[in-house]
Structure formats: structure tokens, C-alpha cells
């Protein structure tokens, strides 16, 4: 009955096909982690960067590599280490004796999908080299500005447990990630399947067999569709209220910035499109609220001592606010 009443305004067929294809590709290799896969796709569609956090061995790097592999785009991997320098990431100018001039050699940051593995192992100096490129999709070296090709997506991983030889990411950099996804342990059933696949040597074969299912043009088209999706004004106000509440919450030392509100709306649009809707509902905003806000806010020391997490506070804020209806 609904299709007769509500004629589709936006053609989401191509987008949904693309989402299904990439979801199928990732799910065939990564057992479980459905939510992580959905957020990875949402970030790709919303033109955002993702930070994957989890203990070692929960397929963070594998997830990021598979996203890159399923897209017909260039891929770079940068292993962040304590001795890594900004020029190792961005590139450097080298003197060419033949022309008696400096020539810029591009660093590994030049690519479409960039996997920054163990991002918290590099010092703040190197991490800050990513500030400009992550926000403005450009880098400035020796007075020259170089634009990144679209799509440009940074997939970073970090381990929350290890403290030895790690550096906490600066707030300014955390704010540049659309989502921080906590990759959790698989369930018992999922782990059995992982072991069976490994035992039958299926995993390696399947990883090698992964082919690009999304072209750069298709990604650009999907992003353009998502940008044009409809958001009712009261829902914009709702997202702003959630962010605003983080600034007045007594449990928080640092609230979220307006960039967080923008990120919430953009990612809610992507989530809505993935569900075949050309408009956002409050559920879409609630779904993305914790992954968007949790890494952008800071708990007060006493709340941290009580064992609360930023995601708990976001949940409390959402429970307190009235749903626009």
C-alpha cells in the first residue's frame, strides 16, 4: 500500500545495490561484526574517516583492508611507529642536482583509502601531520598545496589496552574522525565459524578472491545522493540539542563541537539511505550518536573513576531528550 501513497522521490536503487554488494563482500570474510561493517559503509558514504578501536586480534586491520579491497581505488597502508616523522607520511622535497631544484616526492598519504595502522604509536608531532589532510583533503608542503583525490578516507586502528609506547590522540585529531567504532570480541558461535574457516584454509582463499565491487564514480554518485537527502527541521534541532547537552553535562569535562552535530546529520543521512529511505528519522540520529560523539567528549576524572564511559553519558543524554514527533 505504501508505494502507492508515497511515490519515491529519490532513486536509491543503485545505492542500495552498492551497499548490499559491499556488505556481502565484507560479511563473507569477517564473521560477526555486523554493526562495524555497517558503520564502515556509512562512513564511506558520508565521506568520513573512521577510527577502529579494539583489542588485538578482532579483525580491525582486516576490516579496513577489505573495505579498501572492495573499492576500485588506490590503497596505502602506513604503519605508525614511535620514530615515524611527518615527512614519512606527507612526503618531502628532495634536491635534484640535475635541475638544481627541489622536487616534491609524495608520501603514502596520497591515495584514496589510507589505512593508518596502530595510529596511537606515533607521537603527537606525526599525528598532527594528518590534521590538514583529514579535514581539508589537502596538504601544504614548502608553500605548495596539493589536493587529495576523491574519495579520500582514513581508516585508522588503535588498541585501547596497551599503554607502553603509545600516545593518546590529540582532541583535534579525534574530532576529525566521523566515527570511533569499538570492535568487540566475537560470540562463541562466531568464533567457532572463524576457526572452522581457518582450519579449512578458506579464509586466505576468500581474502585473495575479493574483488572491487564499487567504482570511484559510483561512490561519488552515492555521496551526492546522500547529501541531498531530506532532514526535517525538528530533527536538525534534535541533533543540535544532543550535542548541546554534552556541553552542559556535569559528568563531562569537554563537550562536543559543532563539527559533531554536522557529523551526526551527515552520518544519519547515510544510515537512512542504507535502509532505503530518503529522509532521516530520530532512530537514525540515535544510532549514530554514540559512535559520533563518544570520542569527541571527555569525562570528568571522578566519573572516569566511577567506571562510566563516554558512550554511557551519550546514552543518558538521549534518554533525557524528548523525541521530536
Amino acid at each position, binding site marked *: *500500500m*505504501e508505494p502507492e501513497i508515497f511515490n519515491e522521490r529519490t532513486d536509491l536503487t543503485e545505492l542500495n545495490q552498492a551497499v548490499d554488494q559491499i556488505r556481502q563482500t565484507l560479511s563473507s570474510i569477517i564473521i560477526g561484526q555486523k554493526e562495524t561493517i555497517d558503520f564502515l559503509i556509512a562512513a564511506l558514504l558520508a565521506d568520513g574517516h573512521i577510527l577502529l578501536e579494539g583489542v588485538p586480534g578482532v579483525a580491525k586491520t582486516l576490516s579496513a583492508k577489505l573495505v579498501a579491497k572492495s573499492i576500485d581505488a588506490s590503497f596505502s597502508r602506513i604503519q605508525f611507529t614511535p620514530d615515524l616523522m611527518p615527512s614519512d607520511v606527507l612526503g618531502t622535497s628532495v634536491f635534484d642536482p640535475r635541475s638544481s631544484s627541489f622536487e616534491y616526492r609524495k608520501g603514502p598519504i596520497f591515495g584514496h583509502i589510507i589505512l593508518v595502522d596502530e595510529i596511537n604509536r606515533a607521537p603527537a608531532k606525526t599525528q598532527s601531520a594528518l590534521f590538514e589532510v583529514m579535514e581539508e583533503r589537502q596538504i601544504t608542503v614548502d608553500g605548495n598545496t596539493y589536493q587529495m583525490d576523491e574519495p579520500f578516507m582514513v581508516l585508522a586502528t588503535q588498541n585501547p589496552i596497551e599503554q607502553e609506547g603509545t600516545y593518546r590522540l590529540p582532541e583535534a585529531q579525534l574530532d576529525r574522525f566521523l566515527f570511533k567504532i569499538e570492535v568487540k570480541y566475537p560470540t562463541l558461535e562466531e568464533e567457532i565459524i572463524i576457526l572452522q574457516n581457518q582450519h579449512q584454509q578458506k579464509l586466505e582463499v576468500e581474502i585473495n578472491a575479493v574483488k572491487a565491487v564499487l567504482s570511484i564514480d559510483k561512490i561519488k554518485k552515492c555521496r551526492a545522493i546522500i547529501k541531498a537527502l531530506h532532514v526535517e527541521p525538528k530533527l536538525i534541532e534534535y541533533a543540535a540539542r544532543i550535542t548541546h547537552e554534552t556541553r552542559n553535562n556535569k559528568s563531562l569535562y569537554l563537550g562536543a563541537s559543532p563539527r559533531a552535530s554536522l557529523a551526526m546529520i551527515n552520518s544519519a543521512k547515510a544510515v537512512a539511505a542504507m535502509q532505503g529511505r530518503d529522509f532521516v528519522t530520530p532512530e537514525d540520529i540515535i544510532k549514530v550518536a554514540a559512535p559520533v560523539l563518544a570520542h569527541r567528549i571527555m569525562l570528568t576524572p571522578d566519573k572516569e573513576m566511577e567506571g562510566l564511559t563516554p558512550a554511557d553519558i551519550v546514552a543518558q543524554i538521549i534518554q533525557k531528550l524528548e523525541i521530536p514527533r
Partner: protein
Amino acid sequence: MRFLLFIFIFFGVLKVHANVVGPDSVSLKTVIKLDSTKVDLRKFDKSKLDAFAKEADFKYDDAPVGLSLWDRFWRWFWDLIGHALSNKMSGGLIKYLIIIVFVGLAVFIVLKIIGADLKIFSHKSQIVEVPYSESNDNIHEINFNEQIEKAIENSNYRLAVRLLYLRSLKKLSDTNLIHWLPEKTNQTYISEINDPDKKREFSKLTHQFEYVWYGEFFIDRENFNTIKDTFERFNLYSS
């Protein structure tokens, strides 16, 4: 550091020693001098003293006590309470009445502080007709029939669908199929319904509401009537 500590202790000991030894070594010799000059006794003039005594500024004994109106009220109030309590007939009754009032007040304040639903005391909240614009989020205070009619008259079908949906939520809340709270999402209400048929039907209504309200899809009179029929069927079915 050690040197400083040594100096401090050394001079401290010396001072204590000096204090102990001091009084024994001093002998005082007191010399009292006699004053033999003649003293003239002066007397006060009695008439002048009387004149001063008559002046208002020097009358301290009968100075009026400055009671404000507020103080007078409280004196009257406590006098009244005191008289009432001292009365053998009514004293006991009033005493207990006052205790009940104060205990009741304390319980009320505590309940207000913990945010308890005070409607349990009045069994069912009295329905107060509040203008729609002021009560658009409290489903128990909206006069749905009137507001829906008004929205249809104004051809505001989007608002009419919203009111139809809120009315369905109220029906579900009244029949205890859902527990209404403004902070809950539509999907939460769907998950609260246990009856599979009602859940399916309400999911359809939610879908229609979301398309019209959040999606701002245009609906004409004909489409609105179709949606309205669906809502009315559900309301009949769920009541």
C-alpha cells in the same frame, strides 16, 4: 638543611632556658608615692539634671518597641496557635492536625524531589483542555477529535496524520500495551507491543507517519482518507 635544623633547635633550647631562669634573677622594689593635694568636691546642678531628665531623648525606660507588621502577624499567629493548643477541648485535635499537615508537606516535597508520579494520589489525572499549540507533546492533554477536524478543515493533512498517530499512541498507552514516555522512539513502542498482529498493524501506521511527518511526503485528500481509514481500523481493533 641539617645545619638549619641544628640552629633552630639550638636557639630554641637557649630561649626556653632563658625563660626558666629569668624570673629568679630579677628583684622588684616598689615605691608608693602619696598625693596630698586638696580635692575640690563638685556638685551637679539638680535643676539642670531634672531638665535633662524631662527631655524625650533621655527617656530610656518607656521607649516604644518597634514591631513591624510582619512581626505583629507572627506574634498574632503564634498567640493563636498557643491559645488553640492550650484549649483543653480542641488542643489535642489541632495538635495532631498540625502534625499531619507538616508530615504531609514533607512527604510531598520528598516525592517532588525524587520525581515520583503524583497522579497515583488522584487515581486518574483530570483531563484539562489545553490549547493544542501549548500541549503538542502531551498526548493525554490533546483534544484529538477537535484538532484533527481543524487540521482537515485547513487541508493540513500532514498535521492530521501526526495527530492520528499520537491518538493511536494514546490508545495503546490507555490499554497498557505500551508505556508512554516522550523520550521513547517509535521503534521502542513497536517492540513493546507483544501481540504480533497489533505489532504488525502498528508498524504500518508508524511507517505511514514517518513518511508523512519526517519525510514530509505530500499527501492529498484522497491519500489522507486512505491513511485515516488505516488508523481508525487500528484504533477500533486495539480498543
